[in-house]
């Protein structure tokens, strides 16, 4: 150990490895999972799943341990400023880990049914998770891009994991082509930023953005030479990120990919991948480009307004539940963008809290769809839930909770999340004295009524339609039950007693507060 330390002082101090313990655990677990798959006897691939679940829990424990141990000293940076451990990173990492754990729990049975029970699946989930984790703690464009690609590439494979199914292959291909394109756009934006700032470190970029836009004596009328280039870079970055979070007009891939992918992958894609993309979005826009909030806030506002509308209205006519939830996921990207637009305490809390709740309710909803899934019966149509209240009242009640929470009814977590997102917008409007924030909030909240129309359709089918479409029992496994129980409990807990969860979400505020708040004050 000492030897190692002596030889590598030029690169990094060994103790900096403490910053990435969870990621190391996950990488090792993923590699072991790959080997296990080969060594295990046939039909024992479920063990890999349990092993992966253990790895995720261990990583979660180490994240919590790091929080408890170093929490006072946050933010900690290491690896020449490339990795930054702060409240923001910890909160998002825990959300990803939760998403991954629930995903693994709901996929154990699904893969059996599909006869695709192979250990690679869990290894891929772990690799994707590793990428997400680095997205939360990366503080350098290179790290961020590499981790984004790690996550994206694994997802291309995961989406087409059921190789015998044509839909899955098609979805994977579409997702891959469009994803590669968007990565290119994103990389273009990053290269422009690098060109301007001369550094890939987000802190340096923030400093140079500020010095360009807020040079002493400069105001909005002064011509700033690098400003057009900065704007171009910002727009390219935004476009790339809009694709990742599936915001309009870059949302086209989402319905196809969501519908074609194996359902657990859809669940993971819509929660983990979305949360990770939002972490990236927040890091780049709130920290790196925090100084040009006045430039990007209107752009994001327009995109959020259109995304919310298109997502909700398109979902209304869907009959396939996965496709419907894909459009709902598009509209939720719009709601989450409101938190970044607001860029204040309420907005940040809303972003983190809503992502947490969204993870629970979306994986929960997909979990119910998975429980309907049997060979020959795909169970993906909304009508396949018909009469579920008679067949299995507990599952129907759980689904009702997920749907009402997605809509944002009080007493569910969705309401608390939306409360903060809308509240942040109103606060920002008051602070800046601009009316468009109020209009945006009104627009967004009116559209939640539309969203209730299609969420309630699930409830209608389950409770109001008499006849069960299919009387055979649900395909439930213990792991699936536990995952659904965790999801329901979490949603109700956030809805009824949100205090601890708000405190948890508030941890991201201190990391971001300096970035945007400070520059607003300068202006």
């Amino acid at each position: 150990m000492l030897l190692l330390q002596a030889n590598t002082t030029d690169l990094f101090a060994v103790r900096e490895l403490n910053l990435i313990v969870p990621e190391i655990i996950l990488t090792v677990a993923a590699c072991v999972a790959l080997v296990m798959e080969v060594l295990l006897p046939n039909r024992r691939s479920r063990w890999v799943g349990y092993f992966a679940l253990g790895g995720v829990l261990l990583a979660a424990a180490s994240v919590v341990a790091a929080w408890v141990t170093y929490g006072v000293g946050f933010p900690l940076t290491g690896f020449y400023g490339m990795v930054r451990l702060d409240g923001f990173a910890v909160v998002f990492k825990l959300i990803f880990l939760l998403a991954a754990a629930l995903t693994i729990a709901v996929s154990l049975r699904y893969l059996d049914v599909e006869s695709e029970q192979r250990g690679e699946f869990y290894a891929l989930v772990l690799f994707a998770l590793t990428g997400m984790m680095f997205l939360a703690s990366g503080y350098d464009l290179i790290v961020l891009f590499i981790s984004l690609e790690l996550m994206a590439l694994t997802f291309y494979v995961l989406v087409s994991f059921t190789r015998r199914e044509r839909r899955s292959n098609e979805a994977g291909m579409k997702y891959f082509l469009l994803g590669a394109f968007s990565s290119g756009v994103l990389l273009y934006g990053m290269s422009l930023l690098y060109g301007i700032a001369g550094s890939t470190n987000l802190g340096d970029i923030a400093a140079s953005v500020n010095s360009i836009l807020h040079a002493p004596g400069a105001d909005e009328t002064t011509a700033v030479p690098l400003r057009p280039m900065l704007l171009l870079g910002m727009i390219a970055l935004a476009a790339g990120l809009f694709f990742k979070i599936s915001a309009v007009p870059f949302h086209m891939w989402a319905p196809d990919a969501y519908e074609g992918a194996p359902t657990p992958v859809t669940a993971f894609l819509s929660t983990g991948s979305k949360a990770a993309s939002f972490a990236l979005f927040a890091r780049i826009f709130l920290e790196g480009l925090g100084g040009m909030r006045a430039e990007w806030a209107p752009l994001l506002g327009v995109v959020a307004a259109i995304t919310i509308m298109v997502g909700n209205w398109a979902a209304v006519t869907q009959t396939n539940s996965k496709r419907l939830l894909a459009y709902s996921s598009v509209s939720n990207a719009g709601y989450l963008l409101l938190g970044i637009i607001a860029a204040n305490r309420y907005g940040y809390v809303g972003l983190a809290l809503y992502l947490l709740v969204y993870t629970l309710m979306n994986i929960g909803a997909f979990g119910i769809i998975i429980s309907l899934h049997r060979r020959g019966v795909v169970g993906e149509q909304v009508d396949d839930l018909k009469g579920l209240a008679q067949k299995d009242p507990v599952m129907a009640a759980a689904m009702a909770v997920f749907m009402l929470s997605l809509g944002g009814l009080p007493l569910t977590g969705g309401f608390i999340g939306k409360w903060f997102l809308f509240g942040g917008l109103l606060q920002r409007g008051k602070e800046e004295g601009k009316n468009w924030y109020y209009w945006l909030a009104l627009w967004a909240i009116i559209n939640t009524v539309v969203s209730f129309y299609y969420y309630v359709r699930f409830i209608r089918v389950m409770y109001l339609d008499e006849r069960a479409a299919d009387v055979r029992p649900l395909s439930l496994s213990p792991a699936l039950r536990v995952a659904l129980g965790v999801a329901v409990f979490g949603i109700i807990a956030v809805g009824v007693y949100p205090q601890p969860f708000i405190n948890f979400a508030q941890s991201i505020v201190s990391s971001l507060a300096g970035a945007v708040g400070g520059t607003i004050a300068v202006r």
Partner: protein
Amino acid sequence: MNIPYLLSVVTWLPAVGAVIILGVFKRDQGGAIKKFATAWFGLVFLVSLALVGYDRGAGGFQFLEDCQWIPVIGARYQMGADGVAVLLIVLTTLLGVIASLSSWEYIQRREKEYYVLLLLLQAAVVGVFASLDLFLFYLFFEVSLVPMYFLIGIWGGERRLYAAIKFFLYTLVGSVVMLLGVLKIYFLTQDAALVSKITQATIDSLAGNSQASALVASTRAAAAANGTGVFNIIFLQSLGSVLSPVAVTTLEVLLFFAFALGFAIKVPMFPFHTWLPDAHVEAPTAGSVILAGILLKLGTYGFFRFNLPMFPAAAKDLSYFGRFGVRHVMITLAIIGIIYGALAAMYFVVKRDGDVKKLVAYSSVSSMGIVMLGLFALNPNGLNGAVLHMINHGIYSAALFLLVGIVYERRHTRNVSEFGGLSHVMPGYATVFLVMAMTAIGLPLLCVFISEFLAMRGAFEAQPMWAAWAALGIILNAGYMLWLYQRMFFGNIDNPKNEKLKDMSGREWAYMLPLVALSLWIGVYPKPFIDFIQKPVNAVVRQVRPNYPLPGVPAPTQTAERQR
């Protein structure tokens, strides 16, 4: 009787009953479930009677409860009721018993879910009336939609799916807009400069007693310590005194309309009423009883509790839109509602396949117009009448829906043209129907007379023309009710299907008689009821118009506000 945490007990007891039914009974034990549920409703009603111990002389909010809930946003679990809330809560628990008793025969399938939802609905509605924290209020207000959606959607008529989703989405539009208003209000209470102007005197005058003032003071202290805003309703009501110091501000008007939209859809006021007939026609009888008797009052109660005292400058505004003010908008819509509702109801007497239930639904639109007119008369008579009319409407419209339900269970039709000469075969039924029809018309010695008279008198004091227009609606009311009664009960039995109809059973008498008795009681001797509402009403009037001379209260020193 002194029960600790009385309001919480009354609120949550129905929910406990729902949990017991879910846990103890099996799905096929319909008979046991309906008996248990009705007994439980009876228990809740008896417990809620302890609320009648409300100190009418002191007024203000009583039965206070306070408990920390979400300190980060300043929301607390605060309960409290003034006289108006007490009456509405007792009415709710009474209608709960009646509604469950009336469903014994009508509900033949999925009884377990039915009674669970009925109990949950009652918990949510009582919570709305009992909460003293805006956040908590909003929670109950919106959650009450869900059980009603199921009640209409599962046990409703042919077009139940359409009616259920229409009810749900319509009322949701209003409440989400209101949510923005709630958020904005909340941020206003974080504004130290604004809040510091709210005097302790204002808060004292609103709370009406020292306990409530102490509650507000401790809530403010807690909020200041955590750096949050305040959701306490008493405190928020005093915001009105500082929102528009000179002339009415756009902010106040916008907030007024944000709240008003949420409540107006619930009431429902004229252009937002279209969900109501559909919901009523499709809902099962008990659903209609709760809907008309209680849920509509959530809207008018909201106006009484929030719009008037919180935004007084907007509520009495007469010139915001040039020659037209916010108050004009509300009054105009109320009057249109009164006349339109009556005309529409009349149409369903004449129409070949006119539905009696639709008629009663439109008469509700008309009646709630009278409540709104009384509220926006903004004087003690008008408000007393409006509040009393909420109670009375809860009594007679519930009774009419029950009566329609009784005949529907026998004939499975509600078409006016199917009936005729019913008084020959169902004399008891005809008598009760007559009493309730007369109540609806506003015959003296029956309850509606008192409240309509007060509301009209209030409107007359404010502006004689308003009362004149409203009187037109009341005349139409009498017209269609008498006409309906004539067509259904008099003449010969020309439809052979009606010849063998049975008169009301013991169970049906059991749930009709209390309503008849109440109608007579309020009609003959309304003083106990007026006593409950007088102080809270005076407090609201004082809040809206500080200089208005109140009866029995020494007039303030300034010259009385000029009447328009």
